[in-house]
């Protein structure tokens, strides 16, 4: 019981910090004073890491459930739609953040700004879906 709750809690800690990173990182890039290009690439790397942590910890929730009960969470309807939304956001967010990190310096400012907006939107949508996943099943 204690180890099970600990496993869920530690996974949740990673998931929460991942969420803060993807949304906060993109928001900072949009609203902070203009960043030097090296700093922007660093921020993109941080957001890439944030999305990777989101995916890993999301899989981790399923893994903890499977380890302790031999099955995955039993969700239906709205919760499935919310989970699908989160997975889609995470996949798109990871890919876009990675592109921004690797090729962003060659892009013009307008394209970079658009990418950060898209990343902020993906992060906010994933957070929105997370609330529905938590409270519907």
């Amino acid at each position, binding site marked *: 019981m204690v180890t*099970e709750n600990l496993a*869920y809690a530690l996974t949740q800690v990673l998931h929460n910090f991942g969420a803060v990173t993807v949304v906060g990182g993109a928001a900072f890039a949009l609203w902070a004073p203009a960043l030097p290009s090296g700093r922007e690439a660093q921020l993109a790397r941080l957001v890439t890491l944030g999305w990777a942590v989101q995916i890993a910890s999301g899989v981790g929730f399923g893994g903890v459930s499977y380890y302790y*009960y031999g*099955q995955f969470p*039993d*969700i239906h309807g709205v*919760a499935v739609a919310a989970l699908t939304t989160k997975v889609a956001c995470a996949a798109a967010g990871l890919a876009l953040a990675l592109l921004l990190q690797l090729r962003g310096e060659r892009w013009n400012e307008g394209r970079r700004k658009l990418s950060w907006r898209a990343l902020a939107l993906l992060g906010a949508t994933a957070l929105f879906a997370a609330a529905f996943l938590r409270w519907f099943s």
Partner: protein
Amino acid sequence: MRWFQSQWLPVLAVFLMVPAMPAAAAEAYVKIISPADGARLDAMDLAKLVYEVRPGPKGDHIHVYVDGKEVGILQRLKGSYALEPLSPGQHSLCIKVVNKAHVPIGVEQCVKARVE
């Protein structure tokens, strides 16, 4: 401080025993009071699931299933749940206790009912 130094062993024993007591007292169960297993229901009547649940230390909330598909969440530990109209034929009605992550923890009861 001096009192604690002389009494630390009984104090430790109490702390070690306390977590075990509520777990033993709160054994989880699900009881479907109605319909009874094998009951025949009238298709024209509103089918109700009358139940009593104790989620236990590992349980968080309760899911209701009809033919393996989740149809709702029970908000109370004791009461009744109105089912959507059921088609004629045999149906499996289940109540399962799940944890915070919506994973069934193995505390459940199912009954079969025939709608005519």
